[in-house]
């Protein structure tokens, strides 16, 4: 009797998991299908050439979006690098250097920062961050003669660089909290073992970070996919200019998501723009998927 009951329970749970999994997987498949079906006309017409050209001319129905693809990769990667340093730093300070009493305050503050709507970050990025970065980072570097490599900033400071820094600020609270929670959960006996060998605090922290490197990779994966997909805030600070030289990060540019957000309102007026934007979205989807996959895979191996 008992056995029958538990078997029934098992089947119920199994059904529930199967159904939720099925819904999840099929919705992802559906999304890909819709993206692919809608972008089919341009895929059939141009193949992969939109991915390797930067000529965006709706009048002649030319839709090369390499500039946006490049903008996405450049901003998200730079954001990831900045955010990684920030999140690890913040998490380490939280876990090892501040007194217990201060922790709830810092924690609440960081969680609050994670919950701010992205459009508010966008406004702040537009009105505060971009001009500040322009005056204190971009201009000084340009005056050092780096403009051939990094480009000339626009008068307002909107640029791929500003977008990257803004993205870093936006993704840091979450990624830092992932690392932080893992750091504080390192058992006391492991920390005691490290300290008992006469290690300095910084040496202990470095070893602890190595110990939790898998969580750091998870935080990176989460950050990168958020950075790649973030739209509203980026669209406000990135400048929305076709910039084929997307590695010149002080110039304004486009990312895929800002391109879609910016161009979609008038896309219906052209034959191939909607398919082109869906094609770009499909590419965005696969970038995010690939990065997640790679980071999580490398986490498994180590």
């Amino acid at each position, binding site marked *: 009797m008992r056995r029958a009951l538990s078997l029934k329970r098992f089947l119920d749970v199994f059904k529930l998991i199967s159904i939720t999994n099925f819904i999840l997987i099929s919705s992802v498949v559906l999304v890909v299908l819709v993206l692919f079906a809608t972008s089919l006309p341009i895929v059939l017409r141009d193949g992969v050439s939109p991915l390797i050209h930067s000529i965006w001319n709706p009048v002649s129905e030319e839709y090369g979006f390499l500039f946006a693809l490049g903008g996405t990769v450049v901003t998200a990667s730079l954001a990831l690098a900045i955010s990684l340093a920030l999140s690890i730093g913040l998490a380490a300070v939280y876990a090892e250097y501040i*007194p217990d009493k201060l922790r709830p305050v810092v924690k609440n503050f960081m969680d609050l920062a994670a919950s701010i709507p992205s459009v508010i970050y966008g406004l702040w990025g537009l009105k505060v961050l971009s001009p500040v970065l322009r005056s204190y980072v971009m201009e000084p570097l340009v005056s050092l003669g780096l403009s051939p490599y990094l480009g000339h900033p626009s008068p307002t400071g909107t640029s791929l660089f500003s977008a990257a820094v803004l993205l870093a600020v936006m993704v840091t609270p979450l990624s830092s909290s992932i690392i932080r929670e893992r750091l504080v959960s390192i058992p006391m006996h*492991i*920390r*005691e*073992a*490290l*300290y*008992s060998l*006469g*290690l300095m605090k910084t040496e202990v922290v470095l070893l602890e970070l190595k110990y939790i490197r898998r969580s750091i990779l998870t935080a990176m994966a989460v950050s990168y996919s958020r950075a790649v997909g973030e739209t509203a805030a980026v669209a406000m600070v990135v400048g929305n200019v076709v910039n084929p030289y997307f590695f010149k990060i002080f110039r304004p540019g486009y990312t895929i998501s800002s391109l879609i957000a910016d161009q979609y309102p008038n896309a219906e007026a052209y034959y191939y723009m909607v398919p082109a934007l869906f094609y770009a979205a499909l590419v965005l989807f696969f970038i995010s998927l690939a990065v997640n996959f790679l980071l999580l895979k490398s986490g498994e191996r180590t």
Partner: protein
Amino acid sequence: MEPVIHIENLWVSISGRDILKGVNLEVPRNVVFAIMGPSGSGKSTLLRALNRILDLYEGLAVRGKVVVDGIDVYNSKTDPSVVRRTIGMVFQIPNPIPNMSIYDNVALGPKINKLVRSRAELDELVKWALEKAYLWDEVKDRLNSPASKLSGGQQQRLCIARALAMKPKVLLMDEPTSNLDTVATAKIEELIVELKKEVTVLIVTHNPFQASRVSDYVAFMYDGQIIETGPTGQIFTRPRNKLTEKYITGKFG
């Protein structure tokens, strides 16, 4: 001979609660010195006060004097990491760093503290420490496999090797066998007796029989104070204090 550990009127409180209430203790060199007593008597705190691992706990207040191998442990000019390099520690839960190999666990301390100059010297030291901890023969063919693959008893001996690799003057052991089975315990006890050739061993145990098996000297602690201390044979045959007698005859503890 000058004692290697000298503790004078040591008071420790954590978050306002007194844990040690005026401990005085002298430990001679190259002996096994056991501290026994019931749970909550302050044994582990006393041990952790010696190498300043207690510094990791919040709300700590320490008064009194502790001198280990000539180092004034609580002098404001003393660097706690120097103290910890002189005093090795083995814990209640075997705690090798799980994602590190057997070799790296032992090599970690000497490497970071720059006790060796070459890879060959490090290899030599790791081998020496593992031999001293009776572990070399069991692991010599798999030094690069993760420490977490070892059995509990092997992990604890690995921790002993890790501590020994620092060439400490004193080895603190906090109930090192309380998480091990009887076979692993017997092996570690045998090892402890052997270790006093290299270091002074200060072992905390809640098991009076273990204290009688491994130690040359023993101290009985109760409620943050040392009730009685002396050569092991004497304490176990002619205890002067009624509480000690009750404890070693198993009436409480």
